């Protein structure tokens, strides 16, 4: 039981960290930023390259 309690406490700490991070993240701001920029673009293509060939095709061909 002691062992299980110890694990639960560790997980609880993790959970607090994660929930804290989730709650404090400003989704609205990020969403606004993305929407702001995407409303200026016509055809959005993600601005990143991808390691696989298929992916590059997707970004730069379409």
């Amino acid at each position, binding site marked *: 039981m002691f062992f299980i309690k110890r694990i639960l406490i560790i997980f609880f700490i993790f959970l607090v960290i994660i929930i804290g991070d989730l709650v404090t993240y400003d989704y609205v701001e990020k969403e606004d930023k993305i929407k702001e920029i995407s409303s200026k673009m*016509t055809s959005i293509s993600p601005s990143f390259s991808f390691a696989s060939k298929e992916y590059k095709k997707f970004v730069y061909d379409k």
Partner: protein
Amino acid sequence: MINKNFVDFSILLLLKDKKEYLFSFFIFTFIVFLASSILFISDSIKHDLFIALDKQHQIIVKNTKSGRYTPLSEEHIDSILQISGVDNVKGKVDGYYYFAQDRRYFHIVVDESLDEHSMIISSEIKSILAKFKYTTQFNFLTQDGITSLDIKKVIKSNIISNDVILVNEDIARKILNMDEDEYSYLDVLVPNNSEIDFISLKIVDLYPDIKVKTKNDLKSDYEYVFYYKGGIFMILYIVSMISFFILLKNQISSVFGEKKREIAIFRSIGFAIKDIIFLKFIQNSVVALCSYFLGVFLAYIFVFIFGAPLLKNIFLGHDASHIIFTPIVDVKTLFVMFIFTVIPFLASILLPAWKIAVEDMSEVIK
């Protein structure tokens, strides 16, 4: 059936054999960590892209000539406007400027609010320009010579703005070498969603060279890229599946080998078959649950708090240091992962444990 003494005793036995379980524990944790990291990253990218798509018009029109993209003209706008059901057509200037010194492309996007001497850049571009000592302004090399723009503002890099430079429309045309009546894309506004497909067909009918993409097409493209079948995902999933099966084999053999005698001892002192199975169930549940949650938690911290240092490059390429992943936790997929890892893990232990438990143990314990 569940009693404290029994659970305690199971844990005691688990800790006794911790060396054997530790290997499984680490492998399991690593698999879950890897799989959920991939899941978090792809979900986060997908989420951002879909938000970006939200603001898009329903139909995007591009022109091609002999398989290459060519600009569209005012004439295209005029004729598409005549189609009934189309409410508005906007021509947009958008393209890529090659920055030869760093061998990379900048995405030039029009922002009408800017004047002719300033631009807005992303933080990623800011750090690239800073490498070449462009801290307050940047000189674009155009057909008519140098166009110098001041950096007015730096915006945060996100999935679509990472390589973006926002400039005035005239400047964009200058940088991209486009004439006044030329457009890179057309945005077609169709108020009635059910007419979108029909209207895009009509546009293609009008100009066979034109490539029409609807919002739904784009959406399904993104879905496809982040679908488990797509490229890198398949490889990663296969890797984790294979290592998972290795893990299972390891775990089963540990039950079959030395544990056979131990099980027989417990049977002789009065453990019923169900007790043996329950004992193994408790032990392996502890291992599996701990690994699963530890894997998921570590993946979250790795991806969203530390920004997925190595994995990020696989997904976003090497120039994505400024992109921050939006924390998106898809509980449904995590649950599916739970079902597909923890359940087979437990099953693969309990079946051999049961098999051994029902054997005649009088020979083993002599």
